[in-house]
């Protein structure tokens, strides 16, 4: 039974391996995306009329003459949010490899991999404790930001 399962697994992994367009398709995709993007923008630029004038080229400010420039100070909260996002998103990116590998410890089809990992000393408890430490660090940063009033917008 177990052998049967192994064989069927080998087949299912072997067949797609032969049928993998891989990153060649990505190149085609990027080229197509770039082509569509440029074509659409050129089309309207070439077909549409071009009647320019000082008023038409002015910045839109509800029909009033623009007051000053837009390159000015803005609320620092936007900056803080961007910084916080960077912190959190990078940490979440670290979650992903863990999220892929950890469930495989209990999946029957990855049994040999899991036992290899266990032999090397990376058991389930390693995965759990590692992530608990990581989450604790994340939580400390989160609580710090909360107490500092980063999430208060009024």
């Amino acid at each position, binding site marked *: 039974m177990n052998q049967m399962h192994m064989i069927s697994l080998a087949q299912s992994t072997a*067949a*797609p391996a032969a*049928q*993998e*367009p891989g990153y060649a*398709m*990505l190149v*085609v*995709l*990027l080229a*197509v*995306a*770039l082509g*569509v*993007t440029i074509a*659409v*923008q050129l*089309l*309207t*630029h070439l077909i*549409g009329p*071009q*009647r320019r004038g000082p008023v038409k*080229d*002015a*910045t*839109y400010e*509800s029909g009033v003459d*623009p007051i000053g*420039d*837009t*390159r000015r100070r*803005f*609320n620092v909260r*936007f900056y803080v*949010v*961007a910084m916080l*996002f960077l912190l959190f*998103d990078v940490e*979440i*990116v670290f*979650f*992903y490899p863990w*999220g*892929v*590998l*950890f*469930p495989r410890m*209990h*999946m*029957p089809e*990855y049994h040999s991999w899991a036992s290899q990992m266990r032999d090397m000393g990376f058991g389930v408890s390693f995965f759990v404790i590692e992530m608990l430490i990581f*989450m604790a660090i*994340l939580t400390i940063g989160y609580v710090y930001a*909360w107490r500092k*009033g*980063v*999430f*208060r917008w*009024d």
Partner: protein
Amino acid sequence: MPEFLKTMLADQFWFSIVMLAVSLGVVLGVLAPACILAERKISAWMQDRYGPNRVGPWGVLQPVADGVKFILKEDIIPANVDKVLFVIAPSIALFICVLGVAVIPWAGEIHFPWMPAGQTVKTQVLPLDIGFLFMLAAASVGVYAVVLAGYASNNKYAFYGSMRATAQMLSYEVPLGLGLLVALMIHGSLRLEVMVDEQAASGLWNVFLHPIAFLLVLISGFAETNRAPFDLAEAEQELVGGFHTEYSAMKFAVFFLAEYANMVTSSALAVALFFGGWHIWGGPGPEDTGLIAALVKFAIFWGKVLGFIAFYMFIRWTLPRYRFDQLMRMAWKAMVPAGMAAVAMMGILVALGWHGWSPTMRLVTAFGGNALLVGIGLLVAGRSKAPITGRQDYLPPVRAQRAT
């Protein structure tokens, strides 16, 4: 059928190119314009008016007329803008929505009669082994279009609109990532087609296992696509058009099209990850690889996606827009902790050996875990003095920095 066409269709690379043409044509050429029309019709219906009804029967040709008009209009690039960035911004928006549709597993695998036995092609443009990450990465780059558009326009409305939109998209990407992580931990694979196949094989959609994670992804999806009730970026009453105020002709149309294409993509992602993709009980399974079965799967997938899109539209005309402070508070004070808790809960289940259990046991434990989280959330919400979206007047001022 000529021989070379048969060999082409049997090869994954050429079949992917066919799929690219089909999915681009369907999403950008048919579905996005159809969505625009549907949105106008649905909003008209909900507001008790007619909506577009002049061009063609029931106004079905309205998007075509609009498209022609967009192309024929003058492409104004105002004098004060940063010209390079001004052109690059809509390009990024369109570029990203072309990339986004690439990894969606539309209809499982197809086995053509002339192929050797056991061989199949995947109905996917890009069957990457990191398809999930690719999709997430493509979605994240979309922020640049908004930032650059607002900054390059040199217009106050556009600038503040883009600031808001950026903060919003960044904030909601965190709970989105956490919600998707839970779905990832169910399958232990970054391949979207594997996720769908496993859901179809067990008949147990991920939404039944982890409703909280799905809710996080759904709400973040609304926010990421700048749809109501999170459409502050283009709050007409305050900011005119938001980040695309200065754009005209096809450049404006590109932003518009990209918004709808992103809606389709995020719906398709939600369907693939949480609603079993092309699977329906009693329908074709992963082992049915005939052409007819593939078409049925394709239809089921699109039915689910269209259902999602209709849901998006109903929500738009049902819920009022959030205020900006409510929006940020909801993301950081409610959804991020909920996402962390959902990940922790799933982590505990995985550590206990969740993947080795029977489907019933999995369903019961995962659902129990979710119920527990909802209970804790309600308890915390009940003990707090005001809802998370209310004005937090009772809060003391932030403690000043101690003098050193």
